[in-house]
């Protein structure tokens, strides 16, 4: 099967229903292959955590109870599913950590966040688990904005974010808040009430220049607050919100990563947005972000 995502033609041995199909004749930039020879460990590898190791620029992930995923040179993702692993769980890790690592190997700066289109440019919202990134993406969609990427946001040397695939992952709790009925959507994996929500037709198809990076910072406060970071202060925020930051050094990418973060810092507005934890006040949060983004134009 041939698919397209992030400007790449992707061949896959197994179904990837979240991705857009590509015409069958296209030469593949990246192959996702089933391979029962994928090892459990690489000799002489550098550990990037208990379940991730890197050697010669390749990354091996051993996701407990799911799969061993070997990401090689940004050209191949070799997958050996563990006995009893379900297809959704395997896909979750292949399309997340696996594809994210491949994009890093291909020279992109990969940011962990959600990217939407605002006035022909790209706004990326970053932040820790529970900060509200996916809720925000769904909120923007509800207002007619288009999604560029969900979770994995690759940025090229020209500072453009490349579109991923037409899907956002949405927690049941956020769906309820947005009055979205999750009946009929698939769980991202069994045992979690987080759903794959297709957004075909409301996604972006071209890379867009990144203009704004907003970090969501939930606190037990009463009101929203926005603090712009200037000059060198922008750099650590971008570095810390890199997708799978702990893979960068083991993959030997620390120098290029630093330069990429510095380059991005030079071209974007960066701000930390403190938001009240309860209630979420999604509409107000979107107003705050859009007002700030438009003020720059």
């Amino acid at each position: 099967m041939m698919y397209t995502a992030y400007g790449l033609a992707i061949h896959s041995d197994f179904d990837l229903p979240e991705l857009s199909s590509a015409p069958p004749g296209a030469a593949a930039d990246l192959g996702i292959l089933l391979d029962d020879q994928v090892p459990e460990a690489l000799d002489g590898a550098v550990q990037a955590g208990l379940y991730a190791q890197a050697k010669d620029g390749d990354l091996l992930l051993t996701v407990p109870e799911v799969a061993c995923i070997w990401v090689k040179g940004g050209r191949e993702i070799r997958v050996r599913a563990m006995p009893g692993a379900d297809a959704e769980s395997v896909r979750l890790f292949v399309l997340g950590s696996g594809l994210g690592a491949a994009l890093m190997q291909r020279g992109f700066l990969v940011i962990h966040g959600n990217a939407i289109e605002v006035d022909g440019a790209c706004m990326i919202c970053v932040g820790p688990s529970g900060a509200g990134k996916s809720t925000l993406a769904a909120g923007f969609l509800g207002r007619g904005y288009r999604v560029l990427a969900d979770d994995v946001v690759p940025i090229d040397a020209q500072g453009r974010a490349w579109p991923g695939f037409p899907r956002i992952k949405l927690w049941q709790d956020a769906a309820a808040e947005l009055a979205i009925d999750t009946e009929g959507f698939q769980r991202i994996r069994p045992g979690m009430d987080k759903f794959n929500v297709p957004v075909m037709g409301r996604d972006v198809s071209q890379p867009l220049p990144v203009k704004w990076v907003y970090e969501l910072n939930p606190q037990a406060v009463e009101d929203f607050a926005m603090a712009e970071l200037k000059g060198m202060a922008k750099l650590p925020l971008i570095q810390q919100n890199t997708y799978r930051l702990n893979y960068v050094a083991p993959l030997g990418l620390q120098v290029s990563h630093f330069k990429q973060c510095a380059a991005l810092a030079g071209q974007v507005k960066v701000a930390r947005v403190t938001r009240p934890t309860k209630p979420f006040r999604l509409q107000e949060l979107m107003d705050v972000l859009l007002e700030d983004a438009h003020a720059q134009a």
Partner: protein
Amino acid sequence: MRRPEERPALCWLASYPKAGNTWVRSLLGKLLAGTPGPELALAGVHAAARGWLDGLAGLDTQELTHDGLERIRPDLYNAAAGRGPGWLFVKIHDALHRTGEGRWLIGESPQARTIYIARHPMDVACSLSHHYQVSLDEAVRRLCDPSCALSERTDKARAQARQRLLDWSGHAASWLDEPSAHALLVRYEDLKADPHRELWRMCEHLGLSPAEADVDRAVAGSDFRRLAQAEQRQGFGERINPGVPFFRKGEVGGWRRELSDAQVDRLLTHHRPGMQRLGYLLPDGSPA
């Protein structure tokens, strides 16, 4: 990652929520810092904090199910644990239980030690009610519910892993009855009565020989009113509701004013043996 012989050993700071864990983290943090530092500085890490667990795993643990993450927590802690010298303090609210694979949640590290912090369950109920903004009846119910857990929802992102608490008595027994936990019991009430003595006891348990002046400084720096004032000025990360301070009262026996007779009876009936064991009953069997 550093080799085991270079990493500190793990010291679990184990407690049911609202029993005084943060206070102990302040005491130990200030003691071992050497020089005066930030007022609200605390020792160590949180056993269920996703940021720490993600780093140990090399995965986004938000993509694991609650059960899947529980099964790997012993290996993650083994990977973090060293042989010392020095201690990495790990705050933990989980009861000490076995995972689905029969392993102790805290892993298998022979050098590990535990400081178990206990507090009168009736005061815990009151504190819990304020902190989580639930009714006193609900707080009492939770203390008596062996299936109680923190962060157990599956429908939203949680900053922490699921933490199974058991009920208040079961929680204490789980840590104090397991020899491999090497637990020292420290009671909130004794900390209030004589913080110097309790801090010395903790140091002895951990093989630490601090200078007297450092102990004095740590105790003074962790005085409740001082921490409460610091929170008023600069906020505090453990506060979860605006307008509800984390350092609220810090008193012993406040339950007498807040709990109804029915609530007191319910806790007493359910937890009598546990309260007896931890010294929370008077000779006539009434709550201390």
